[in-house]
């Protein structure tokens, strides 16, 4: 077993951030899932409803912070699994590269959906 496979970083910061973002996500996911799945029902969502909701800066800020915390928490969790199971340095680097590029791409898509697009809707 290669004991020196990690960098000088002990992972303590990631360990704390995983718990801090997890605590925040606990409330965010219950609110998000509660509104969309229990109060409204996801089948009742529509373009007009979504656009007018995102016109509200509080909703926009909520969804954007939820996106960031969820993607960070998920990325960090997958990184832990990669670090645990992939012992080859080259393969671990390859897996992490795919992970980071993938998360960055999804972050751009999510940000575009939440922040950039806010066409006025005739109601």
């Amino acid at each position: 077993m290669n004991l020196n496979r990690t960098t000088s970083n002990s992972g303590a910061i990631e360990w704390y951030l995983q718990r801090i973002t997890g605590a925040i996500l606990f409330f965010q996911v219950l609110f998000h899932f509660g509104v969309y799945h229990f109060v409204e029902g996801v089948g009742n969502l529509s373009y007009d409803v979504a656009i007018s909701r995102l016109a509200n800066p509080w909703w926009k800020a909520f969804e954007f912070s939820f996106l960031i915390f969820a993607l960070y928490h998920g990325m960090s969790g997958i990184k832990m699994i990669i670090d645990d199971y992939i012992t080859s340095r080259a393969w671990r680097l390859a897996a992490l590269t795919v992970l980071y590029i993938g998360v960055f791409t999804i972050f751009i898509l999510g940000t575009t959906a939440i922040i950039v697009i806010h066409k006025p809707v005739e109601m």
Partner: protein
Amino acid sequence: MYKWRGGMLSWILHRLSGVGLMIFLIIHIEGMFSIAKGPEAFNKVIATYNTPLFKVLEIFLFAAIMFHAVNGLRIILLDFASGSRYPKPLLWSTYIVVGVVFLVGAYFLMV
């Protein structure tokens, strides 16, 4: 790091649900990106939410979220609060809370 006893099943379920939720998150964001393409594209995605397959997936999603959220809270209580003094009650109460909330929630998702 993961040395507490009796929590092995929870540890495995936490990882599995976490990977599942990350896969869902990618699909979900990709789907919601359709809002940038306009009303037709977005409403087409929403229409798939009304299919029976999606209804079943929604129940699984709810189960994964509830387990990961409540078990994650348990991990935080073990690490930072006095939860490490009561690991066993904390462990079985996690399963009870997740089970009860899931059953009640799943009922409302199905009706």
